[in-house]
C-alpha cells in the first residue's frame, strides 16, 4: 500500500499529483500487479481533499489500463510499468548525462538547464499539436 502526499506549492493540481504518484510508484516497482490502492475514503480523509478528486485520479489510471476498480472491494493495480521503468532507460540516461555536462560547460546553472528543458519541451509539444 502506498501513502499519498500533496504539495500545495507545486502548481500541479491535486488530482494530477495523485496520478503522478501512482505512476511513479509503478515505475519504481513500489506498486506491482495485484496491489490495492488506498480507498477513496481513506485518501480523502487522510489528505483532507475532496473525494471526487481521488475518484477522478483513479478513473484516469483506470482509463490508462493501469488499475481496475472492483466495486465494493477496492482499486487494484493491473500492471507494473516495467518496460517503462527508469532502469530500462540506461542509454537515454547516459545521453542525458552527457548533455548535462555540455550544458554546464556552456555555463548554464540548474535553473537555466530547467528553463531550457521546459521551453524546448513546450515548443516541441506545440509543434506536434500544430
Amino acid at each position, binding site marked *: 500500500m502506498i501513502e499519498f502526499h500533496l504539495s500545495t506549492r507545486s*502548481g500541479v493540481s491535486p488530482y494530477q499529483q495523485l496520478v503522478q504518484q501512482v505512476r511513479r510508484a509503478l515505475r519504481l516497482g513500489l506498486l506491482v500487479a495485484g496491489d490495492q490502492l488506498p480507498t477513496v475514503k481513506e485518501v480523502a480523509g487522510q489528505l483532507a481533499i475532496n473525494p*471526487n478528486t481521488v475518484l477522478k485520479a483513479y478513473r484516469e489510471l483506470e482509463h490508462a489500463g493501469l488499475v481496475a476498480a472492483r466495486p465494493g472491494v477496492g482499486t487494484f493495480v493491473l500492471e507494473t510499468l516495467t518496460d517503462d521503468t527508469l532502469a530500462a532507460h540506461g542509454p537515454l540516461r547516459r545521453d542525458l548525462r552527457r548533455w548535462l555536462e555540455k550544458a554546464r560547460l556552456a555555463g548554464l546553472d540548474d535553473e537555466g538547464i530547467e528553463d531550457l528543458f521546459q521551453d524546448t519541451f513546450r515548443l516541441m509539444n506545440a509543434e506536434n499539436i500544430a
Partner: protein
Amino acid sequence: MTAIVAAEGLGKRYRQRWALRDCTFEVPAKRVVGLVGPNGAGKTTLLHIAVGLLQPSAGRISVLGARPAEDAAQLGRVGFVAQQNPLYPSLTVADHLRLGGWLNPGWDAAGAAARIAELGLDLKQRAGRLSGGQHAQLALTLAIAKRPELLVLDEPVASLDPLARHEFLQQLMRAVAEDELTVVLSSHLVADLERVCDYLIVLTDAQVQLAGDVDDLLASHHRLIGPRRDQASLPHDQQVIEASHTDRQSSYLIRTDRPILDPAWTVEPVGLEDLVLGYLRRAATDRGQQARLGVVR
C-alpha cells in the same frame, strides 16, 4: 441533474442597504461548494437565507426542492453549523449527543459515538471547556449525525489553528466520501478551499461574481504575459478580469472558452487562489471607481 439549491434574483435588504442583491446560481448535487468573498460581502446572509433563518426581500430560493425551513421534514434534511459553532457550554459532550438524538428523527447515534471516540473527545467534558478545534469537531459531528442531504457551514475553520483546521477538513471529507452529501461552506481561506471544493461561488459587494465547477473555471481562465498591449486589441471572446501593465509588458487574467492563438503571449494556467484574487481585486477596483464618480457627481 436537479439542483440542491437554486436561487433566482435573490436579494436581502436591511433598511436602505442591500446585503444581498440579484443573486442567481445553482448548487448541483453531491458537490462541495466553496462560498468565497471578503468580510461583509453577504456570505452569512446568503447562508442564513438558505437554511431558513432569514427571509429574502426579493427573488426566489429553493433548497432540496422546497422553501427553506418550509416544514419539519425539510428542516431535517438540512444541517447547519453557524459561525461560532454554537453549543451549550455547560452541557457535556454526552449531553449534546443525547440532545441530538431527541431532536432529530434520523439521528445516527452509532456513527456519532464512533466519531467522538475517533476524535478522542471525553464524553464527560463540558462543551465550554473544549479547545477550539474540539468544539468545532463536536459541532460538525452533531451536524453530520443528523444525516442531512445538505450541510451548510459558515466559516467553519476561520478561528482554528492549522492542525485543527486540517483535522476538521479530514472529518468533513470522510463524511462526504461516506454519505455523498452536498456541502456548502463559506471561507476566506482559499488554500483550504482548493483541496476540498469542487464548485466555487465568489460573492463580493452583495452580488455573485462567479459560480461554477472548479475544473471548468480553471480550464477557462488563463494568465497572458507578453509585450505591452492595449486591452481593446484583445479578441472579443477574451473577457478581461484583471490587467496590469509596465512600460513594456502587459499581463492579463482572462476568461475564454476558445484557444489562445496569438503567439506573442506566454499563456500560463491560473490556480484557484489567483482566480479568486483576480475577481476580488476587480470588485475592489470597481468599488473605487464608483466612489470617485460619486465624488464628481
